[in-house]
């Protein structure tokens, strides 16, 4: 579904992605973990070209990423993205946030878009907030609305860029539950997160990144119980010890 081949990315002098190879199968849930600055967010953002890459190739559903223009917009419509800072449209209600892209990109009739949006909001448990503005919601509710907004486009793959990192601890669970149910339904997902519990519970595969490289790829049990690399061991020791 998603494949990266020899991807390199620089921020000026900084080599943030070093020759990344990664393939994600349909319905697979890949959780990307690693220390801050390891390049995992950049990796996630490069898959829908919010970050351009300097070398290599990224394919989504077999198609190479187009350059800027209508073709790229069409590809992005098929790739759902959930951001750390939610990024709900501040001037639109929750319902309008969810219907905006289906109506304007997919040309779904308004009535149908609203009905589908309400079903999605119901599914993420915030149907009662449909008429509210984003600022009137808690962080967890905003992130669930953002997930509904992405799902409304019926994406082939969902990217999560640290979706719980900006949340108060008591709201992390409600967002992870929605993500876990998505994973259980067979959505193809690439999740960048610091939530090791979620990685263990929902991932098919854990990818460990450090200093712009994929250091280790393994099934969650293997990764957490018997990490193969020294860097992964010290990372896990530091995040699991507190």
């Amino acid at each position, binding site marked *: 579904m998603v494949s990266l081949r020899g991807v390199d990315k620089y921020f000026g002098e900084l080599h943030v992605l070093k020759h990344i190879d990664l393939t994600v199968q349909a319905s697979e849930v890949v959780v990307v973990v690693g220390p801050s600055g390891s390049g995992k967010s950049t990796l996630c953002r490069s898959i*829908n070209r*919010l970050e351009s890459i300097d070398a290599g190739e990224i394919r989504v559903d077999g198609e190479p990423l187009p350059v800027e223009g209508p073709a790229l*917009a069409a590809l992005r419509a098929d790739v759902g993205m959930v951001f750390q*800072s939610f990024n709900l449209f501040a001037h639109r209600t929750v319902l309008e946030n969810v219907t905006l892209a289906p109506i304007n*990109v997919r040309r779904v009739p308004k009535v149908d878009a609203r009905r589908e949006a309400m079903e999605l909001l119901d599914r993420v448990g915030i149907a009662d907030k449909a008429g509210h503005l984003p600022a009137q919601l808690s962080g967890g509710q905003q992130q669930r609305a953002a997930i509904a907004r992405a799902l409304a*486009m019926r994406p082939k793959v969902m990217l999560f860029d640290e979706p719980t990192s900006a949340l108060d601890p008591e709201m992390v669970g409600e967002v992870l539950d929605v993500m876990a149910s998505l994973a259980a339904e067979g959505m193809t997902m690439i999740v960048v997160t610091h939530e090791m519990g979620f990685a263990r519970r929902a991932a098919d595969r854990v990818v460990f990144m450090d200093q712009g490289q994929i250091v280790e790829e393994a099934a969650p049990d293997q990764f957490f119980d018997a990490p193969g690399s020294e860097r992964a061991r010290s990372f896990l020791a530091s995040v699991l010890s507190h």
Partner: protein
Amino acid sequence: MNPLIDNLGLVLEALGTTLLMAVVAGVGSIVLGVLVTVARVSPIRALRVAAFGYVQFFINVPLLALLLLAVFALPDAGLMLPLTPTAIIVLIVYEAAYVAEAVRSGVNTVAVGQLEASRALGLTLAQSLRLVVLPQALRAVVQPIGNVMIALAMNTALAAAVGVVELTAAVNKINLVAAQPILIFSSAGVIYMGIALAIGLAAGRVERKVAIVR
């Protein structure tokens, strides 16, 4: 007795011209100003450069000079328009530069994540600007645009210098006969203050109404 009241018909007609210029040029400058802003933030370099040049030109050339140029030079170039429409067009292109500066500052207040989210959903850049960025940018700059509109209303008085019989020209004419400059021009000043106050209050109302809860 106030000579302005003795000449109420003339004063009202001239006030009508002033208001017409202010309203038409106001709407026109907001539309043009937003378009200039779009050009200014577009990914096409030629458009950005052109919009930058536009804004710099009109901010750095006096309005009176532009009015004189349009009224006396354009007919020479074979472009004949009645005086009031000419003045309105000059006001539109002039004030649009100030509107564009205000709207651009509004665009800068819109978080980059808003644009990223709309692009990530598959909206084109034009759709992102129209549906996400500009609505938020404009909400943030209602009051600054109100100030530009007040300046525009006051600037309509300069049209008197090129022969448009608006409020200032009319009271000047009345004063030539009545010779009571303090009373006459103060009264005209009060009318301009009323216009400015009305625009300011309207901007305040609009701002409260469209404010984004954050």
